[in-house]
């Protein structure tokens, strides 16, 4: 393993973070040296018994100097804040066409699901030059996915999806590790991210044992778990139609309107009594403890794909 597995600037975001970092390093060295030089100068010049002139203090030195460096510090810090914040704002939302890879963390392992259903352990294969969005959830405690070469990390929480997105510019193998203390083998919860040229990535996916794809597997689960029994249009049970539900606005019985995103759909499966859709009875049983995180990923993939089919997403 080389240090460059950690420090390579594998994305343009990484390069931007490094730029900010090195400017701050330069600034810090400048300010420290200025302070230390003054301390050293005063220590030598005004050491006890030295001949340096003391006498009355110049008038301006108290108030004007104090106000001066207070304002200077304030403006400087404001500028750094603005610069750091501005570089962050543009990266808040991932592009719509991002490749979605699911990550399930558990003590002490990373389980990865490619969109077509290929599974990996402690390894993520991604194509270069294409935005990738990691949708992450934990099965137990809080973990944190840390990709040093991309200069990003995100805590991975139980019962709640968090996301991380990036566009890798450099191909190669880089380090991947857990950054949030998660128990005994925390320091062994490491792996690698493999950035391949897009063509190689396609070939790599092809070479894996054949998979149906997450959405197709989700469709099978949708039937075997009994979802379709009620949610199908032909069903005798009065249940909301889930065709094209993803991304739609949903009116709830208590008057709120929410967007049917991953978090909402997940909660509706596990805690169906919480957000009742307006006009329906709370008859759905909870699937808590029945649907595993991996199955949930597949169910959501299916619900999303049916949305795309219906054209609900722009």
């Amino acid at each position, binding site marked *: 393993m*080389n240090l460059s597995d950690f420090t390579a600037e594998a994305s343009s975001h990484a390069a931007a973070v490094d730029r900010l970092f090195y400017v701050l390093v330069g600034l810090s060295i400048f300010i*420290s040296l200025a*302070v230390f030089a003054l301390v050293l100068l005063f220590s030598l010049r*005004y050491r006890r018994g030295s001949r340096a002139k003391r006498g*009355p203090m110049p008038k301006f030195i108290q108030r004007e100097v104090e106000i001066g460096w207070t304002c200077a510090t304030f403006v400087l810090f404001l500028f750094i804040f603005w610069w750091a*914040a501005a570089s*962050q704002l543009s990266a808040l939302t991932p592009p719509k066409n991002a490749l979605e890879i699911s990550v399930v963390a558990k003590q002490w392992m990373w389980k990865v699901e490619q969109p077509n259903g290929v599974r990996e352990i402690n390894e993520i294969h991604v194509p270069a030059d294409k935005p990738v969005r990691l949708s992450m959830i934990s099965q137990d405690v809080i973990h944190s996915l840390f990709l040093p070469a991309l200069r990003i*990390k995100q805590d991975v929480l139980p019962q709640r999806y*968090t996301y991380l997105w990036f566009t890798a510019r450099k191909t190669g193998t880089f380090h991947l590790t857990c*950054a949030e203390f998660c128990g005994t083998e925390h320091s062994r919860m490491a792996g690698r991210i493999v950035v391949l040229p897009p063509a190689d990535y396609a070939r790599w996916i092809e070479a894996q044992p054949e998979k149906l794809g997450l959405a197709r597997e989700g469709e099978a689960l949708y039937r075997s778990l009994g979802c379709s029994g009620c949610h199908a249009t032909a069903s005798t049970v009065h249940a909301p139609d889930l065709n094209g539900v993803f991304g739609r606005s949903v009116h709830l019985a208590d008057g709120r309107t929410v967007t049917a995103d991953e978090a909402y759909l997940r909660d509706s499966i596990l805690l169906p009594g919480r957000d009742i859709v307006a006009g329906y009875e709370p008859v759905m049983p909870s699937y808590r403890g029945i649907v595993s995180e991996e199955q949930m990923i597949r169910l959501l993939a299916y619900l999303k794909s049916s949305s795309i089919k219906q054209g609900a997403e722009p």
Partner: protein
Amino acid sequence: MTDILLDSLPPAKPANYLEEGHTLASWLTTTDHKRIGILYALSITAFFFIGGIAIGIVRLELITPHGALLSDDQYNRLFTLHGIVMVWFFLVPSIPTTFGNFLLPLMIGAREVAFPRLNLFSWYLFVAGAVFTVYSVIAGGVDTGWTFYTPFSTLFSNSHVIAAAAGVFVAGFSSIATGVNFITTTHMLRAPGMTWFRLPLMVWALYTTSIVMVLATPVLAMSLLLIMAERFLGVPIFNPNNGGDPLLFQHLFWFYSHPAVYIMVLPAMGVVSEIFTCFARRRVFGYSAMVYALLGIGVVGFLVWGHHMFVAGQSPYANLVFSFLSFMVAVPSAIKVFNWTATLYRGQISFEAPMLYAMSFLGLFTIGGLTGLFLASVPIDIHVTDTYFVVAHFHFIMVGGTVSAYFAGLHFWWPKITGRMYHESWARFSAVTTFVGFMVTFMPQFIMGYAGMPRRYHVYPEVFQIYHVISSAGALILSVAYLFPLFYLPWSLRHGDRVGKNPWGATGLEWTTPSPPPKDNFPRIPRVDVEPYAYHPVGQSADTEGREPHRPQREDA
């Protein structure tokens, strides 16, 4: 040690506080703020070395990347022990309970703190908390890290979380009691003429710290109580499987623990303000700016906790607000650094051990503060959160800052507390060694942290070994520097030169009473008619070489 001092004093003088009783019982039942200060000093010294031994083993283990010495669980328990002991049983109580207790009444011209028995009670609370924590260690330790993050601490950890949390919970009440005591003392017991803007900066620092303690510590107590409730009684609060929110704990925890950083560092700022002025023979530069900076840090310090949670799943807009406030809290800290530096201008500077420690505080605090700007910047913080960069940053503030200031204060007030002077060249040696050892230990941690070395790692990639080896070598130097005073300070109790009231020629009221002070501090309550640090006339600078003339803060001196 009390016998020696007893023999030495002429019989006519009023007895000093050390002569008021020589039995163990006389110490354990004392309500004298000075004796309670010493009880605290002995207790936290013990904890400083317990925490130090724990991290000594950790640093030894980290010399090799493969975890040759310890098991994963042993390693996790050791760094947790280090964190819990150093934060709650050394750093938080360090300066306030020792120098604060000893000096606050002396500095404001009072005979006691406002509630002497509450003061003794708070020491017993501290000891009770310590007993719980020591029990949790003997029973097998805790492996949650000092941060007790849920749901790991409540549902997954197989260690003695409840005992450790109970220890911190009880010790927290000790902090609250001390805070209440100091606030009341400062408001009610100032000597005639000791107006708010004649208070030494040390008193302002203790006062601000006390306010933060009283407001923040209850939140810690509450969050630890909720942890115990969830772990012991199964009350679902943080458990997401029952609709709880694990992030709620982080918000509560950091709402205390970020202000706790200021509980640790504000008193240190007070200590070095006394020392810079005394050893430069100068009025402090910008007294009122220094006071407002302390208060500003105290207030804004409550509003920045979210910068610990930039990657925790908090809204990115919340991140920006916390980032902005974190930059703002750095402004008053920067002003203090500039003012200390400017205090040296046109001084008559001498370099005894307290000054050397104070100067190393200034250097290390400056580096610690500047690296805080990196962590306030969201994109950099996202990369370095939970890496050694953060570890290095907060050690610069808490160890480079607070512990240096603690040693500075220990040497500065040692003659006042004991009546004897320490050995100067040994003390200078350990001051310089501390600085060198500290830089060697923590500088490499910035580099490996930015390169991507996560904290709390028992085994680590080999590429980082070189940095860990340097860091461990630095820790060895540092441990020598911290152990050395343990020999020469007690040595001075028997062999040190006796000192008069004011060996440093300082202006504070504590220097107008005998060393060691009598039980009631002052034969006559002083009357104050001058601002602090009157080392030279207003508008002048330090013109003469000697300790004199300076103007003590009392009329009849």
